[in-house]
């Protein structure tokens, strides 16, 4: 892929994490448009209305979301035609193997929220690898 502006959908209720993720993407040198949803319900409505042509390049989402759980959003994404190849990364403070298994079964990538800033910044690099961006 070339260096076109990435369309990134972020579903995260914690504004501190939104801040850190934005920073991580920037530090990785990515050019991106971040569309942020603060709760699952709002995100679900958006996902259900998505047109194939307007499909984003990446979904970044929390797991324990208010109102609508991350699981339901992953399921909804699974039902959307045309989103089959769009990577979805679940960033969560959970360390439970049960959650990891659920995420992976629904086609997501499970990433534990790092404890330190340095590790957090690594997430940007991870995303680059997943998207195949230089």
């Amino acid at each position, binding site marked *: 892929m070339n260096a076109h502006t990435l369309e990134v959908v972020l579903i995260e209720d914690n504004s*501190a994490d939104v801040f*850190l993720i934005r*920073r991580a993407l920037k530090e990785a040198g990515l050019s991106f448009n971040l569309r942020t949803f603060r709760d699952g319900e709002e995100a679900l409505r958006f996902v259900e209305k998505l047109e194939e042509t307007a499909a984003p390049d990446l979904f970044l989402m929390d797991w324990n979301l208010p109102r609508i759980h991350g699981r339901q959003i992953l399921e909804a994404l699974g039902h959307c035609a045309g989103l089959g190849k769009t990577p979805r990364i679940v960033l969560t*403070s959970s360390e439970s193997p049960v959650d990891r298994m659920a995420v992976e079964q629904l086609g997501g990538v499970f990433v534990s*929220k790092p*404890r*330190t*800033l*340095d590790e*957090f910044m690594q997430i940007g690099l991870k995303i680059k690898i997943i998207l195949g961006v230089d």
Partner: protein
Amino acid sequence: MSVRHSSETDLAPLARELKEAKDTLRAIQLGEVDALVIDSADGKQVYTLQTADHPYRILVQQMNEGALMLSREGFILHANPCFSGLVRALPQELNAGAVERWIAPPDRGRFDEVLRASFEGHPQRLELNLIPSPSDAAPVPVMMSLSPLSLESVDTVCAVVTDLRERRERESLERAELMTRSLMDHTTSAVVITNRDGRIVRANAAALELAGGPIISEPFAKAFPLTVEPSSAENLELSASKLVESAIGGASFQGIQARMRDGDGGVVELQLSAGPFEPIENGARGAVFTLADVTSLRLSEQRFRALADLIPQIVWTLDPSGELQYCNHVGTDYFGMPVRELAHARDRVVHPDDLAELNDAWKRFMESEEPFQAEYRFVSHRGESRWFLVRAVPIRGAGGEVTQWFGTSTDVDDQKRIENELRSANADLEHFAYAASHDFQEPLRMVTAFAQLLQKDLGPELPGQAAMALNYVLEGTERLGALLQNLLAYIRASRNPDAAAEEIDCNEVLREVIANLGIPIQQSGARILSTHLPNVRCPRVHMLELLQNLVNNAIKYRSAKAPEIHIRATAGRGEWIFSVEDNGIGIAPQHQQNIFGVFKRLHGNNIPGTGIGLAICRRLAELHGGRIWVESQVNRGSVFYFSLPVRAMERANECAHA
């Protein structure tokens, strides 16, 4: 004259013959020969007793010993009447018959040997049994003396047969008497034998002491003025004299309670038995009495009951068949019924839900005769169910047989309830601590990330004070993070202990520990030595945690010397004992208990740590039924030990490997 004159030479052979005849007569009179062999026209003739001297023959015929003359083949050439009498046969049945017929089969072999030896010229003696003619007659023990009668070439053997029956009887009587006397003298109970008139004919030392004076020839009832307790003699009105009469009449009595005044005027409690005694004075029946002094027994029984009523437990005894004999007041008060009712009320006093289990366990206990311990609910007379700890042991007699069952039931209801409350409170607390530490991680992560962000973005621009303040914030978050991690590990340690239990090779676990601690080992120059460690069954992470914490501590609390750490495992009683020995700074005695508590630290921040490692170790060791402890000397080093019980599976494995 002419005769005298006619031949001096004719007289000489006559004189010789006369001398020979005189010598023969003398030899026969002195018993030097038993028979004569005379050459005649028909060849050699044996002249035995029948043909020998008449008085000698009469002697043999009439003597009170059996006499036999036997041929080499063992045929009877002659038997005297006494021998006929011994075997109860007629003389004609005996003569010319084989002597073996009259000898008991087991003795025949020996007899043959002896007979053969005596024909070789050696006199022999042996004891054997004769079998008399009537088939129902008892064998007759005899002593047989065999002497060769070698008269020129014809051999016979003379046997003198002595009846040993009287001697045997005398010996056995003497033995019986000796035994009786020894038995009586070594019995601590008084033993008294009376004749048919109830007069004492024998008494042992204990009897004399009890009576306090000479009692031989005294009537029993006078020597022992007993008062018999009616209840113990099945409501019979038994006076001492009645008892004597009944015993002589053939009746037996046991376990009769009686009392009498002894010589000092004190009252002696006695346990008495009485019965007929047969072999007294020409077969006339007498009686035998034994009197055991049970005064001290009675006293100790009284003491036992007083004590049993003082203690707050229910105390009880059962007879060998399992029937309730005794229960103290605590028990009869709790159940609200007397002992004889309680003995048949198990179905009512045991909580219905516990009854089947108790019955089963009790049956096993009575069969195995092993000490018993279990908890059951008993229903009080007010209908309240309370938990009791029931313990019981068998009491054994001298022969190892169970004579009584002894037990206590302790009311543990309050204790049990408090334990349950405590357990549930602990569980709640733990749950809270777990949830809280988990939830604390999220805000801590925020603080950490943003403090680091500030440092990253503004670090060089921050004035000195602010930079320092930010450093403290970061240090604090790091420390709090480590504490939360450890607290979570500590709580997790006791959850689902068997979830990941597996057969693990502790040598492998130790290799992993050494790999994990690579950096501190390298930095401290530590040497880690270990003996061969066993396989155990427990979750791998638990063993890893135990060894890693202990080895890590051994490195951390090192002295100026490079650490030398020995890891060992030895087999104890049904458990493995692991030890981690170091040459570090050691632990003062007053701190050796504290170190296993949560957040207990002996050292300030100069040695990093959260004070939870040993608490986790203790929790893990105890979780698996083991213990943890330390032996240490300041400046010399410490040895940390932990034990793990050997479980059935490992025993099976060891057997398989052996």
